[in-house]
């Protein structure tokens, strides 16, 4: 019977393999887990899912497949009154609370409960989980109690089915982008090389040298391996980038820690003849872009971070910049940079689905030769992959 379950997981794009499935069956034969469906869920997850970012997808697939198997006691959620009250307080702004208090707590509680029941019912129907939405009096789309554990100790944990809580929701793919995750993604760009002081014994070299020396020991040393990748980072600041300050900050701090050879410069909207290092003194201390190109060799990897959202004039026309009179167009300067550094990528914090609607994004996308990636974990991984190709 479980073959269908296995195929269902496959259809839901979980990377499960036959071998893992056989392990699952072996475990069931050996009675590794008890007879409850919770045990089976945990065991199946340990066998089949090898990445916590896929836990959520597994939870959904498991729920879909086993929604018929509902003869488990305690399926209906019983929410304690205080909990509801606490949740309401936690998720409402003072104004909303004032508005709601006019309605009266009891009525509200009923409403809230009804909402919950509805949501649960909708999920049972098999469609996607739907948040309470902006129009709801509860104001916050994150109010599903399913994300929060209901009930106290493990004895009544089965009140809500474990997979239905979907606790791992925020571990899925492109959602979370903390510095740590960024660092991990950046690490794909590592390239080890031996440079610096000779500290490590080179065994092969020693043997070869000793043999050449007619058997007299000749110790050879060599430097340890270090990450030798060099990165040239250009960051867009100000204007429309203000919405993305946080994610850029995180990316920047991760870059600083991850790359020993990191040179960074700022620009506004599009690069022109001058870039700067210090935002406080951007008008006084500019570095000519040509100096940058001449100073840093073509082995540097070029990374732009910017939303590429501006008027097309700022890219295409001389004197198009909104800040100063530029003799040559932004596109010319961009191409100059791209010619100097064959390995390049543009990271865009704007969601990928919006790119098609903005002319300037399209233009830059063309200029960088399609090497524009969204600033999500997945996009970052793709960018690093592109950068580490041989050029």
């Amino acid at each position: 019977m479980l073959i269908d379950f296995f195929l269902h997981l496959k259809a839901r794009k979980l990377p499960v393999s036959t071998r893992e499935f056989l392990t699952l069956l072996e475990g069931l034969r050996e009675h590794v887990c008890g007879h409850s469906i919770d045990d089976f869920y945990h065991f199946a997850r340990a066998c089949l899912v090898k990445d916590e970012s896929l836990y959520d997808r597994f939870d959904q697939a498991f729920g879909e497949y086993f929604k018929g198997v509902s003869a488990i006691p305690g399926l209906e959620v019983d929410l304690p009154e205080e909990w509801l009250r606490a949740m309401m307080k936690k998720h409402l702004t003072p104004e909303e609370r004032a508005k709601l208090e006019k309605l009266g707590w009891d009525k509200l509680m009923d409403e809230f409960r009804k909402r919950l029941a509805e949501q649960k019912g909708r999920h049972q129907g098999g469609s996607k989980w739907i948040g309470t939405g902006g129009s709801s009096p509860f104001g916050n789309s994150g109010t599903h109690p399913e994300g929060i554990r209901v009930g106290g100790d493990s004895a009544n944990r089965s009140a809500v089915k474990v997979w239905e809580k979907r606790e791992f929701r925020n571990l899925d793919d492109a959602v979370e982008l903390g510095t740590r995750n960024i660092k991990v993604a950046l690490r794909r760009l590592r390239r080890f090389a031996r440079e610096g002081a000779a500290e490590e014994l080179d065994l092969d070299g020693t043997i070869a040298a000793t043999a050449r020396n007619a058997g007299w020991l000749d110790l050879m040393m060599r430097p340890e391996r270090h990450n030798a990748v060099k990165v040239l980072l250009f960051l867009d600041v100000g204007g429309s980038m203000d919405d993305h300050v946080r994610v850029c900050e995180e990316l920047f701090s991760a870059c600083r820690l991850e790359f020993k050879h990191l040179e960074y410069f700022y620009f506004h909207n599009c690069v022109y003849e001058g870039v700067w290092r210090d935002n406080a003194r951007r008008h006084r201390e500019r570095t000519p872009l040509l100096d940058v190109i001449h100073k840093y060799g073509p082995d540097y990897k070029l990374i732009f971070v910017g939303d590429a959202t501006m008027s097309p004039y700022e890219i295409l026309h001389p004197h198009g910049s909104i800040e100063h009179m530029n003799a040559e167009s932004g596109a010319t300067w961009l191409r100059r940079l791209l010619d100097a550094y064959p390995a390049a990528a543009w990271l865009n914090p704007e969601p990928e689905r919006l790119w098609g609607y903005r002319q300037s994004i399209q233009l830059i996308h063309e200029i960088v030769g399609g090497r524009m990636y969204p600033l999500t974990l997945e996009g970052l991984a793709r960018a690093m992959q592109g950068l580490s190709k041989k050029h």
Partner: protein
Amino acid sequence: MSQPRFEGSRNYVTTPDLMLAVNAAIRLQRPLLIKGEPGTGKTMLAEEVAAALELPLLQWHIKSTTKAQQGLYEYDAVSRLRDSQLGDDRVKDIGNYIVKGVLWQAFEAERPTVVLIDEIDKADIEFPNDLLRELDRMEFHVYETRQTIQARHRPIVFITSNNEKELPDAFLRRCFFHYIKFPDRDTMQRIVDVHFPGIRKELLREALEVFFGLRDIPGLKKKPSTSELIDWLKLLVAEDIPPEALHSPDGKAAIPPLHGALLKNEQDVHLFERLVHMARLNR
């Protein structure tokens, strides 16, 4: 032979799903890969399982320079070369220069062992692939002495990862996997009870409140983890801080004493102090 079962231990609180994963790994003799936030007790798990089942624990801590071969054995060519120059008799037997690694020790042990391969993601990207056969068949070949080492008892293998590198699929397929999620309040209470059986109830309650409050602050660069909570409680108990100090009587927000144990980043401390300050102004 009846299989040992792990039921948690006095010093380590497990959730049922973790227990199930551990027992499945023991029963089916497959390695168990553990991931989770730093400080959620990944490494401790192996130690506790070994202690609970009264099995010896062999630890192999991985560094960025560790090679898979080092877990099996190393051929100390340099000392042999030196001995040959000095005319030492030992040099005739190459076996004298084979240094056994952790896996070899586990394979030839008289009784089953627990092997911990700690922070496997630190190593080179090929490292897990190089261990596939060894972990699968529990045997390997020593080229220098032309012998094959086979495990007398399949060791219970725990592997921890901090997610710094992705592990190859072929490797993952051979393991069980468990992600230790951050403990909720009740589990945390049990964890603290285990570490500080005598702690005063009200102090603990206030401390947990402060702790989870801190974790809820959006924008912290490093959220405090279980091990930091334990350290902080240790300090609170050592300094004999009264519970009232954690919670100011007039309801105003206060900076908890010794918060340096919880927040490890000066930007975080700064952010936190600003928030507390703002909260005070709002009252």
